[in-house]
């Protein structure tokens, strides 16, 4: 199989898995992680596509490489803080055996 077909299959599996996880697990601790994975997968794919078409990915890369100096680092640190807190919240929820949320 060529790279494009493999990529297409991976995206299909991710979106399908994400959608299944999203709609099949509304409550409970164990399905909570599936729900989170579902939301994350769908959001990640949508956000990834949107980022490519709007230069957001290039902007984040440029910031991380120091092209915008202090302002760029501030952007990346702010983003990392937000995502870091979400991940931390997720880990806390998982360790306490409750549905995973990004916001505590």
């Amino acid at each position: 199989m060529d790279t494009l077909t493999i990529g297409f299959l991976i995206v299909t599996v991710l979106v399908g898995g994400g959608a299944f996880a999203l709609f099949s697990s509304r409550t409970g601790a164990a399905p909570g992680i599936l729900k989170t994975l579902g939301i994350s997968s769908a959001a990640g794919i949508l956000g990834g596509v949107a980022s490519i078409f709007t230069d957001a990915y290039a902007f984040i890369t440029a910031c991380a490489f120091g092209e915008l100096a202090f302002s760029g680092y501030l952007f990346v640190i702010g983003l990392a803080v937000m995502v870091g807190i979400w991940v931390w919240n997720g880990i806390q929820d998982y360790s306490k055996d409750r549905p995973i949320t990004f916001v505590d």
Partner: protein
Amino acid sequence: MAWLKNKKQLDNILMGGAILLLVVLLPVGIWAANSVNGLLTSGYTYAQQENTTAFYVGPILDGLDAEYRFASVNGTTIVEETPVWDEVSEWDSVTITHTGTDCSMYFNWNVTLADLLASRDYTFRMKFNSSKALDVTINAVKFDGVTLTSVELFTGSVENESSELSWTWKPMDLLEPKTTLNKEITDESYLQIILEGGDTAKLTTGDTVQFQFALGEPDNLYTFTSGGILTTTAVFGGLSFFVLGMASTSAWNPLTNGPLHGYGQKGLARARKSYGKNKNTRKRRK
């Protein structure tokens, strides 16, 4: 907010908003910021680039470190060319002396991507009056003393008569290739304008190209530098993410226990209590 039933519902709203921010608002915000110069532009005031100081003495091709301002190239054979500057008509011209049958004209332009990012110029206007149709390419170039690396910025073509061509950029059109080139302090950097014969009519000995190059600044009051637009976006974006990150914590969640609603202490007390409980549990486990 009577329609809200419990904390879980509030949290879900905040979570949905946060995800929406990442998925939609982040790309859309950057797209909007990137479009600022296009949205504000009405007409341009042009600054002519019409003497030798506007052009840089540097290598033309990778692997060949002889340096030129202007040269005609056939394969790897390079011949220096000498333009004639006409301050009155503003039509400068260069006649190809290279004996090759398929020549390209190279202009090393004394401008860097960093210069354009720091300037209020949003466009580069090129006027040509040539005996043959031309394909025009603009590259950003980095020379580290050994290797010449280039990134394509613009391509266009003009007819074999008096024609005009403009390269109008958005801030990210400059920042992205700048990141790709990743210039070190000691590297040389400049832009390169390359002219080739369009269609089947190739440039050769005796062909004359008249040209006018000019940088254009929008003639309105609301002109920002391209770099300024990007740094402002980065500062506001970074602070917004930081605030939203804080809002995702139990102590500062503004929809539930956050200080904006006067429940900050309550949230902190709850967090401390939760921490204490966990600590006791850990002790018991030991």
